[in-house]
């Protein structure tokens, strides 16, 4: 924005609410212990590249200890508890997350790079809500429609991504625990800290040791967990590439599997849409969490007659977005989570230019240190461009146009993915017409990137299988 007199003053959230330890061990059988091989890795603040902590790298022996502890808890303690007692533990966790919300939010923004307003208003409250919702299921499972006396599966190995570290931990742990399973959770290498704080909360809540174990490490730790014969159920959220590897790796083992993988969602704007609202939705669809969202509305499909209007309003709006310090309460766009991810985004954006699409970004000062990428819009995109086909997982929007609803459907569905889609129109019948035809697990109409523990989430085709949330989500953890 021009006009210096209207510049915002910095409004950073206080960082001292959270104490980051210099070193973190693994959370095994109810306590923090050093890894067997003594190896560790550094987790960075992606906004400054400053090291935050040394975190234990779990090896095969640690994975085995974790699974054994979880198996033990499944057979002796947690697995034997009546649902009403499991429920009370989960309610405790939900309340504790809410009590320590500020701490979780600051820690999440520090370790992940996402704006504090998002971690504060989305990640942390939704994580608490997820435990609260599932707590209530624990003693009502016989009414869930999965037959009489539905049983848990056993030890769940859960591997989660770095884009919503705490929220994904909640999405995995809450339904697994409510249904009576025990868990070994593997947070992402670049964002282990909130899962470890959650482990602390779980320990304080008094869950039997071994009910939840948190093992930190890189992809090799996750692979060990997936391979471990004591794990009866795998739940993975992450890239389609790794999801396929996991599905292939457990072939023939009889392990149960749910996968929540990548996406390349279409966000479809019709000419009768409330355009200002749609522009906000487009921004929220692709620039929320720096575009590190599997269900991000990364392909914008605008009806041709309003394409110019929408694009000019979108560009005007993007010029007002504030990129910078994730802890600043006025920040809209935070840091890219890692150098590796920044390289991937940079590479795909270069491919977009090389293939002939037109790149645009608002005037935007990037901080000197840390990993940053400006909000970027590509126009003149064709369906065969890599930026229209591949998941970029960054703040990069590809814009296409359409003339008829049928064309919008054909273009929207022209992807191996099928996680989500958006529809913008004032016409209710058209919303439902589109919703019937879009091949995706979640359809947002006149909104985008909205989540709720009661609302099942998950994909079609190569976006994975299984649902998280709602009654449907319980199936992933029940032997029905």
């Amino acid at each position, binding site marked *: 924005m021009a006009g210096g007199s209207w510049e915002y003053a910095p409004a950073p959230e206080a960082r001292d609410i959270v104490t980051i330890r210099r070193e973190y061990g693994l959370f095994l059988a109810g306590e923090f212990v050093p890894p067997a091989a003594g190896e560790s890795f550094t987790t960075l603040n992606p906004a400054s590249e400053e090291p935050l902590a040394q975190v234990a790298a779990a090896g095969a022996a640690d994975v085995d200890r974790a699974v054994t502890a979880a198996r033990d808890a499944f057979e002796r303690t947690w697995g034997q508890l009546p649902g009403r007692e499991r429920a009370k533990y989960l309610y405790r966790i939900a309340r504790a997350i809410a009590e320590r919300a500020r701490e979780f939010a600051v820690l999440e923004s520090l370790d992940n790079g996402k704006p504090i307003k998002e971690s504060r208003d989305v990640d942390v409250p939704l994580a608490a*809500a997820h435990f609260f919702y599932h707590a209530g299921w624990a003693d009502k499972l016989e009414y869930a*429609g999965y*037959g009489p006396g539905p049983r848990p599966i056993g030890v769940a190995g859960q591997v989660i991504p770095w884009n919503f570290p705490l929220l994904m931990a909640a999405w995995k742990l809450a339904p697994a625990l409510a249904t009576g399973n025990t868990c070994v959770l593997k947070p992402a290498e670049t964002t282990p800290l909130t899962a470890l704080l959650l482990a602390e909360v779980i320990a304080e809540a008094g869950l039997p040791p071994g009910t939840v174990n948190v093992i930190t490490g890189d992809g090799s730790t996750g692979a060990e967990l997936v391979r471990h014969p004591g794990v009866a159920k795998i739940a993975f959220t992450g890239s*389609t590439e790794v*999801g*396929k*590897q996991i*599905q*292939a790796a457990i*072939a*023939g*083992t009889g392990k149960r599997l749910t*996968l929540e*993988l990548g996406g390349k969602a279409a966000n479809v704007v019709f000419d009768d849409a409330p355009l200002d609202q749609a522009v906000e939705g487009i921004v929220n669809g692709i620039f929320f969490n720096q575009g590190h969202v599997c269900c991000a509305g990364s392909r914008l499909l605008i009806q041709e007659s309003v394409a110019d209007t929408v694009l000019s309003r979108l560009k005007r709006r993007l010029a007002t977005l504030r990129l910078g310090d994730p802890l600043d309460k006025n920040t809209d766009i935070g840091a890219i989570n890692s150098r590796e991810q920044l390289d991937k985004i940079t590479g795909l954006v270069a491919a977009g230019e090389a293939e002939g699409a037109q790149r645009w970004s608002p005037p935007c000062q990037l901080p000197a240190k840390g990993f940053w990428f400006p909000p970027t819009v590509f126009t003149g995109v064709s369906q065969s461009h890599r930026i229209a086909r591949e998941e970029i997982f960054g703040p990069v929007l590809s814009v296409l146009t359409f003339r008829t609803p049928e064309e919008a459907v054909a273009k929207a569905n022209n992807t*191996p993915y099928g996680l989500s889609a958006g529809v913008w129109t004032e016409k*209710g019948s058209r*919303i*439902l017409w589109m*919703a019937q035809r879009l091949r*995706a*697990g*979640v*359809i*947002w*109409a*006149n*909104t985008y990137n*909205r989540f*709720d523990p*009661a*609302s*099942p*989430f*998950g994909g*079609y*085709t*190569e*976006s*994975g*299988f299984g*649902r998280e949330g*709602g*009654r*449907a989500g319980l*199936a992933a953890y029940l032997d*029905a």
Partner: protein
Amino acid sequence: MPDRARPTPTPRGRTKGPDVRPPVPDGTRVDVRKTYKLFIGGAFPRSESGRSYPATGPDGTVLAHAARASRKDARDAVVAARKAVPGWSGATAYNRGQVLYRVAELLEGRAAQFTAECVQGEGVSWAGAERTVTAAIDRWVWYAGWPDKVAQVAGSANPVAGPYFNFSVPEPTGVVAVVAPAAPSLLGLVSVLAPVIATGNAAVVVASEAAPLPAVTLAEVLATSDVPPGVVNILTGYTAELAPVLAAHMDVNAIDLTGVAAGGRAELERLAARNVKRVFAADGDWEAPPGTARMLAFLEIKTVWHPIGI
């Protein structure tokens, strides 16, 4: 040339069941034999490979030469199934239920023929075959009632914290490959096929390799009962040759490996991971109530956030 045992069960040693041979003394009329072919896109082609294999009874008697489908036939079947998906999944649930009920009506009329084929192919008694055939017809009737109910059982209205009507509905997964169990040849086939199409999917079925003939006769029923072409495609041939093609096929959305022996499933599951196929396999007592698992395995839950406002 002496008449080999054809689809006419020998009455020797049997006390119950009709003799389906025409009441004509031997030698006065030569019976008309059937060519058992594939069923792809509503048509009955031979294998494009020109191959066949002997379908025999348990005693080695050759009953017929069934088509031995090739990899190309399997791919053609997937194309036909994909083409059928929009129409079948887009039909009203009421319509799908009626079409499936019509299939049951025609099955009933062919009960004796199916029983005879099962007796010959599996070496079971007439009474035993008759029991599985009637169970298969009853199962088809059971599934015919599901299309307009499964969304009510598997769907939900979700009370979200915001001004949205949020609901979840099950939708068909798409093209489902099915490896039918070896036996009971008709009941096993019906048990794995009916849930796939009742839920609006299109199926590519690999019939029982050992007893393929009832599957071809079922195809004849489907072809004359308003099931749109391509909704069911039936391949006869070698499971080991066909199953990997379907498991690896990028335009197949899900696969049911029930008819593959447990030891053979791992490699197929690995191939299925190429495009994140939904994989299902369940062994069990075919005469027990089937439950909803086979339907739910081939449904996707779609959740819609519809705005509420004035």
